[in-house]
């Protein structure tokens, strides 16, 4: 199979270039329309934060991945792209690359669990644009199997690998029933926003935001439908919260040990989780010495992140084994799309159906008629298969193994369920 794959990703290109090549949904649609017919008979355009990739079955034998690279360079001529920024794959390696991408082992964040959905969405766009044909659909189906198997059979996507998610994981090891708990996020910047979103995703009971600039707090609170506490007096409300996440850019401490001590008194020593994900730190690290105060800063959260990342890395060989297995399955299927074996399989299939029905019903005929029944039914089958056999032989004689021929054979096999039906001798 001549599948071509061209990729610009975090392995091959700097972040500025990846940013410049980021494609919105309309860009993808336009590029797919242009590439269809010019480069590929069918294909897929995939774009995420860290990669822009083109997959496709070339329209003719002369198209190589250099043509695809040139196509991209032409489209983004304003940026200094050169061939070294590309990773290019062909045939089995191209399918393998897609499998590696969908499992997340090729991602910047190993085991990234968003990539599966991103590949799926890209395929849907491709389908919508009429850019995805029979072969791409089969490749996508195989990739989906690989993605699902890697999720269920390995731990490649387990554990938090970002600081804000690690904070939530740690909170869940201290408190349960988050829907009955309250959280205060100090700082409405990007980090605070991510942490607040994670908490909301986990169903936190009450969420409040405080920020030195009230407008920013209001904006975030509005999008998260949470409460706002004025920054000037948030310490007076500290005891009302079970979780406090701080992510401000304040140069000095905004929460001292004394503040926390006072709040713990009011809380009657109910557990308090303090997550200081700011640099420099917002809370006095000494608070960790107070009973039932669980203080953690970015360093301790990084320990969790590093541990989870190394666990994920140790799962890569298992994922690679799944990839190899599914590559073999896929190419076994693809290699069966040859004319000669298909003719034989098709005839075997029809003969099996004929023999089964004759066998079931021959007792309804006299001994003389049974012989005639055999002859007549065989003749019917031969007549039905005559034309398809001639057409398939033409393919076989011309040695034509083009994508069109493979598609035709694939559809034929699918139509008659030949791959599901194995003759008795094969079963043995």
């Amino acid at each position: 199979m001549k599948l071509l794959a061209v990729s610009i990703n975090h392995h091959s290109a700097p972040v500025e270039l990846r940013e410049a090549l980021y494609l919105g949904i309309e860009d993808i649609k336009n590029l797919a329309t242009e590439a269809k017919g010019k480069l590929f008979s069918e294909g897929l355009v995939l774009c995420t934060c860290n990669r822009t990739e083109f997959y496709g079955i070339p329209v003719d034998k002369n198209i190589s991945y250099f043509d695809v690279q040139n196509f991209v360079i032409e489209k983004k001529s304003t940026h200094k792209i050169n061939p070294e920024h590309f990773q290019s794959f062909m045939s089995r390696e191209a399918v393998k690359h897609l499998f590696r991408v969908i499992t997340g082992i090729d991602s910047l964040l190993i085991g990234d669990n968003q990539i599966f959905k991103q590949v799926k969405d890209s395929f849907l766009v491709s389908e919508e644009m009429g850019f995805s044909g029979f072969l791409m659909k089969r490749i996508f189906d195989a990739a989906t199997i690989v993605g699902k198997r890697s999720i269920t059979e390995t731990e490649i996507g387990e554990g938090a690998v970002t600081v804000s998610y690690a904070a939530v994981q740690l909170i869940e090891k201290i408190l349960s029933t988050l829907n009955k708990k309250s959280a205060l996020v100090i700082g409405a910047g990007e980090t605070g926003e991510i942490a607040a979103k994670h908490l909301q995703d986990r169903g936190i009971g009450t969420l409040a935001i405080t920020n030195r600039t009230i407008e920013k707090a209001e904006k975030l609170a509005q999008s998260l439908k949470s409460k706002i506490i004025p920054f000037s007096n948030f310490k007076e409300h500290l005891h009302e919260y079970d979780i406090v996440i701080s992510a401000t850019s304040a140069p000095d401490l905004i929460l001292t040990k004394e503040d926390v001590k006072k709040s713990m008194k009011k809380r009657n020593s109910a557990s308090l989780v303090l997550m200081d994900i700011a640099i420099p730190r917002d809370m006095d690290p000494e608070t960790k010495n107070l009973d039932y105060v669980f203080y953690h800063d970015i360093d301790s959260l990084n320990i969790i992140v590093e541990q989870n990342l190394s666990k994920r890395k140790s799962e890569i060989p298992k994922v690679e084994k799944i990839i190899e297995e599914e590559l073999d399955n896929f190419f076994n299927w693809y290699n069966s799309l040859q004319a000669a074996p298909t003719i034989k399989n098709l005839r075997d299939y029809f003969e099996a159906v004929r023999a089964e029905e004759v066998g079931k019903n021959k007792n309804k005929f006299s001994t003389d008629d049974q012989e005639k029944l055999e002859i007549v039914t065989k003749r019917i089958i031969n007549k039905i298969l005559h034309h398809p056999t001639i057409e398939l032989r033409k393919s076989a004689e011309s040695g034509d193994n083009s994508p069109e021929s493979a598609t035709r054979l694939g559809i034929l096999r699918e139509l008659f369920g030949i791959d599901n039906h194995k003759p008795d001798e094969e079963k043995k």
Partner: protein
Amino acid sequence: MINFIDFLNILLPFFYVVTFGIYSYDFMKGKKELANSKRLFLFITLLFHATYLITRTIYFGHPPITNVFEIFTVLAFAVSFSYFVLELVTDIRGTGPFIIIISILFQVVSSLEIEHIITVKEVLKSNLLGVHVFSALVGYSGITISAVYGFLYLMLYKEIKLNQFGLIFDRLPSLEILEKLSFSSAIIGFVLLTIAIIIGIIWLPQAFPDFSYADPKLIGTSIVWILYGIGILSKLLGKWRGKKVVILSIVGFIIAILSTMLTNFLSLSFHSFY
């Protein structure tokens, strides 16, 4: 039948050890595929244990509660059975090895030392004794489980405080859940121990001529009861929480075990029957 009873008696420690092995392996490796098979294995172990207790009761004509080693095997069963129910109800699976090991200890001692006693003292044939011993045993298994969860709470508390995110951190449920499990088990243990004590106070002076309020087991149980009472009340009133309550639960358990061992092995009490 006696051979069958003897066979099960030898087999039970092995069953508990294998079950413990599967739970521990699952705890270490965190394999999803063992999640259901370990539960099935615990169920089979409990089934064999129940068969053992029933056949023993039928053959010897009395429930196996007349001496300390019979009580140990019932306790081993009660602890694992309570855990099994707890696992089914809460679906918290990471704590099994810590509970099952208690059953192993009780069952191994019982299997090694248990004897065939057909004739029992007249006093031990009372129905009230059955209720007294049953409630005491379930009460003890309650405080045992409470102590185990208390111990796990302390371990996880320490790991989180010291930023050590190892196996304990990965596999155990949250601190809040461990505290709840420890507290609920303590309440069940306390209520049943109260029933056992009330029946004991009413019935024992009539049944035993040498009954004494200075009996070490009575004193031990009373201390345990008072400790748990203080702990539960303080927690309910919101005065104590977390570490304090679980430490009290662990101390209560240790005193309960010590008082049982002292009274039964030193034969200082009318409470010793063996």
